[in-house]
């Protein structure tokens, strides 16, 4: 394995980890709300969360690129308040990955919360535990299978996703050039041997990591009574 690809792998890992963490932070409250509050437009919002999936990633990436451009509101906002540009930077591909990954994290978590009996939350409340404590110490540990599914799906998706990242990130080595783009490049260049090598490495590493993630799940099972 050459040094270049090694660096690419490190960058990929960084992107996948940061994206997964950010998605956890964003999705937990959203999934909680979707699971426990009943309002009229819920199906709308659930559908909306899936929408990043229905456009082809490159096209989605194109729209993000336009949004990030210094001529548009979002771009101006970032330029003015954070003095940063999102297009062609690591930050930019993180934002893109997070948007693309939303459905893979929110959906399993929401299902997890929905399938817990109400009495778990109620019991905790009557013990004087706040919503916060209840959330972390009662709800989260009991939706572990869903949590693991969410993490695994987001993580895997983030590694393989390249349409959006390629468009928004622009294939800058060390900054936005992640493993999937490197492999894509090699396939495009008809360097099949190198592409195969890269693919196998990415495949094996991902496979080991995903197996580890799923092993945590081992024989976990809720039986309420």
């Amino acid at each position, binding site marked *: 394995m050459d040094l270049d690809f090694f660096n690419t792998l490190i960058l990929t890992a960084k992107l996948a980890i940061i994206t997964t963490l950010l998605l956890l932070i964003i999705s937990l409250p959203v999934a909680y709300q979707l699971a426990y509050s009943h309002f009229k437009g819920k199906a709308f919002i659930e559908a909306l969360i899936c929408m990043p999936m229905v456009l082809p990633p490159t096209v989605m990436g194109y729209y993000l690129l336009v949004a990030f451009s210094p001529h548009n509101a979002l771009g101006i906002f970032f330029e003015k308040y954070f003095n940063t540009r999102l297009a062609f930077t690591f930050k930019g591909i993180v934002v893109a990955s997070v948007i693309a990954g939303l459905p893979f994290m929110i959906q399993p978590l929401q299902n997890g919360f929905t399938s817990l009996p109400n009495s778990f939350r109620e019991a905790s409340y009557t013990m004087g535990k706040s919503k916060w404590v209840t959330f972390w110490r*009662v709800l989260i540990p009991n939706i572990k299978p869903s949590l693991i599914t969410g993490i695994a799906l987001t993580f895997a998706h983030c590694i393989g996703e390249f349409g959006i990242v390629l468009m928004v990130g622009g294939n800058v080595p060390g900054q936005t050039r992640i493993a999937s783009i490197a492999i894509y490049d090699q396939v495009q260049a008809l360097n099949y041997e190198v592409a195969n090598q890269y693919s196998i490495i990415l495949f094996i590493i991902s496979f080991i990591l995903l197996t580890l993630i799923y092993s945590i799940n081992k024989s976990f099972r809720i039986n309420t009574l």
Partner: protein
Amino acid sequence: MIEIDIKHHIQTSEGKSILDIKAKIPENQLVCISGKSGAGKTTLLRILAGLTKPMFGQIKFGDIIVFDSTEKINLSPQKRNIGFMFQDYALFPNLNVEENIFFAQPLNKEGEWAGKLIKIFDLEGLKKQKIEKLSGGQKQRVALARVLVQKAPILLLDEPLSAIDREMRIELQDEIIKSHHLLHSTTFVVSHDEDEINKMASCILYIKNGKAELVYIK
């Protein structure tokens, strides 16, 4: 003094009906709640705990108004300072027996009490057991221990001993009475067992056709 004056819609086997509860319960009573299946016993406990919001009315715990429909007051369960034992136990499957009991323990209280309860409730050998591997009666004991460990001034126990054998049931009745006296709490116990009611109750709250009647015994 707990003052209850609420109205709430319920669905019974005879169709829609109204639960209309008026009662004043002096402090330190051990109130047994009795009534037919579906009469509204669990609903009343849930209303007292703040888990179900009644349609109309007012509830006062001493001087504190915990619920008032006209003034839109509705204290959350956390602020009502109660202990609630669910008819379906609501034990947390991610924690073992001991951890379930410890979880309920208020942070500022000493830990001894929990250990004592585990012994009294004959759970010593099951401390590390997962909830899903308990028998029905064992679960009920854990649930009861978990409520008592809270040392709450108001205890709401929904059929706390229904799945436990005679011998242990009598022991645990004594435990509830003892803890009731020790903590000077106001305790509500739903029960279908006449002997149990006669033994434990200082007063009985009969719920019938949606109305409540309070009868003092001792």
